[in-house]
């Protein structure tokens, strides 16, 4: 009569437990990192029908955001420029560039392939239907485009910088001072808080602002910014 189970089976349960524990823990960790908007959403960089470069238009030419996104500080929705906004310049500038073929198709009646159809830009930033983010509510209160969209002015091809998850929104709603800036600087993507303080020494001393943190807190107090965290702020 011998043992039914071999001796090596004695350590097997422990080994299995350790391995299973490690595997479950690992999966949980991996999931909590990879299956979040931070990794799934941020970094999305689709190819656009026209390789529009924000770097050229904003950084080099110096266009204001609102030249194209003209209603961003008026409406909840930030509009993408209409075809004729592009055409205003490009009927004169770079008219023959092959990259602009879709624009010609949509607006240039003399173009052979003209069909008048609007350009289909690929959406980069997408809030779910039940989220009612309002651009004007943020831009008019000292939150810059940059806080959510990053240095668009440095992007050849636009990609999503932040996760735009609810937790990420709440972070700023809890502590808006980290992102507040003077209203004049909202559309200035090159803004640097320290530089601003240095450039406005008189006013800043008057307001008692020394550091960038001071500036944020001061702006929060001055603008009376009290972001809400209740559901109906964004969900209706």
């Amino acid at each position, binding site marked *: 009569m011998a043992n*039914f189970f071999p001796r090596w089976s004695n350590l097997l349960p422990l080994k299995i437990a350790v391995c299973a524990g490690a595997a479950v823990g690992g999966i949980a960790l991996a999931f909590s990192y990879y299956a*979040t908007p931070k990794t799934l959403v941020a970094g999305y960089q689709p190819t656009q029908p026209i390789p529009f470069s924000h770097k050229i238009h904003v950084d080099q030419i110096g266009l204001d955001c609102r030249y194209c996104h003209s209603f961003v500080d008026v409406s909840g929705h930030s509009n993408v420029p209409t075809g004729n906004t592009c055409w205003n310049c490009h009927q004169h500038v770079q008219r023959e560039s092959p990259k602009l073929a879709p624009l010609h198709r949509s607006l240039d009646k003399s173009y052979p392939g003209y069909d008048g159809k609007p350009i289909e830009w690929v959406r980069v930033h997408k809030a779910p239907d039940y989220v009612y983010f309002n651009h004007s509510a943020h831009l008019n209160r000292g939150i810059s485009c940059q806080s959510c969209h990053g240095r668009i002015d440095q992007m050849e091809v636009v990609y999503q910088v932040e996760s735009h998850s609810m*937790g990420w929104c709440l972070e700023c709603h809890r502590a808006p001072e980290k992102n507040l800036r003077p209203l004049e600087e909202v559309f200035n993507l090159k803004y640097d808080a320290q530089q601003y303080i240095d450039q406005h020494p008189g006013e800043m001393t008057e307001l008692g602002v020394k550091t960038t943190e001071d500036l944020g807190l001061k702006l929060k107090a001055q603008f009376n910014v009290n972001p809400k965290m209740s559901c109906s702020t964004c969900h209706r």
Partner: protein
Amino acid sequence: MASTTQNAPATTPEIKLPVLQREKLILNQRSYHWITDRICSVVENKQPLLWWLLFIPSALMALIGVVGGLTYLVSTGVGVWGMTNRVFWGWDITNFVFWIGIGHAGTLISAVLFLTRQNWRTSINRAAEAMTIFAVCCAGIFPAFHVGRVWFAWFLAPVPNANGIWQNFKSPLLWDVFAVSTYFTASVIFWYLGMVPDLATIRDRCKPGLRKLLYGIFSLGWRGGNRQWSHYEMAYLLLASLSTPLVLSVHSVVSFDFATSVVPGWHTTIFPPYFVAGAIFGGFAMVLTIMIPARYIYGLQDMITMKHIDNMAKIILLTGTIVGYAYLMELFVAFYSGAIYEMSAFKYRLAGPHWWAYAAMMSCNVLSPQIFWFKWCRENLWVVMIVAMFVNAGMWFERFVIIVTTLERMFLPGDWKTYSPSGVEMMIFVGTIGMFLALFLLFLRFLPCINIAEVKWTLLESDPHFDDKEHHPDHGIVASAAYQHEVATSYGNAADAK
């Protein structure tokens, strides 16, 4: 164990231990081996035809009712049930509370009766615990699938998430989630741990093969050494003492679902004890419903004796009376409140559109157990079985009355509408009955349905001092049930005499 009686003989030396003829828990002077053989044969032998006759329809019921019903429900919407914008809960939560109530007897029998040294429990606790677990499985189906978006049920779990949002710890429903899942976990552990030595018994009787492999794995290599028994006994005691408050808390928390609301007829402070008593009541009835046929089918009459049945009938009588008291108290409190909303809630229960449900509840739960005052009723298995069936039905009606009749006639007459269940709802309930039976039959088939080790322990000869207790009175370890019984009785008598 039993430290309270350790020095008892020393302090009352003149008490001569009376020689009372105790009622034996195991009849006919059975040997250890007979017990082992008898119980293991249920697992080892071919199942009787009756098993198959019961199992196949049960499994089909479960398949069609639960699997089919839930698939339809989830793919189509909760609208396939009969709930409306007036009565938002119907059979779903009724069934949940019904099953979770049944799921109370098992742990209660094991834990509370263990702590109170009711050794008669040993024959029935295993089956009752299994019943608990299967009933909780059935119960769990309803709250999980009654939600509108079951695929988002994970919102109930407090895990960190990208949305930065958490649960509402003030909600009785969240308490429910914690209570029911804890209860399920604790019950499974209690059940399994209690089964380990018995699995080892079967293991040792198996020929090498798949069965031996499986029983071997699940018996964890149990050797029955006293160094193991020592920890094992402590673990069992701990589990029993943890499960006792747990079992009381679970149904209290379930009753909070109702008691913490503002709904007249729900908003009642007596709900927790009332629900717990009701759960024990219903649970014992279900144990009887299952054990009476099972002891016949497997010939376990010597282990599940008339004494067990008598005791359970008495508990049903007691808890049934408590429940009846609660029913009457509810009426009185509503009347005494002076608030028309409270009074009418009970008026409409009594005489409103579902008066028959109230009548069924009253007669099944309060009136029918009263016949257990008569000894012959407790001794007649047919009577016991019928009463147990009545109680099962009555407890279902109790939950139906509480949930449905209340919601049908709440505060504003403008929103009053009656509820009627849909076929899908009924089908799923029938399916859970099938699932319960099928799981129970599988349990009988594969696992020792009676706690072999504990039953052996209750035999007189299991006491190490059985044959020489006069020589070892100072050891004070009162081991055998018989011995303990005698001591307790004699002390009781002595105290009475003073």
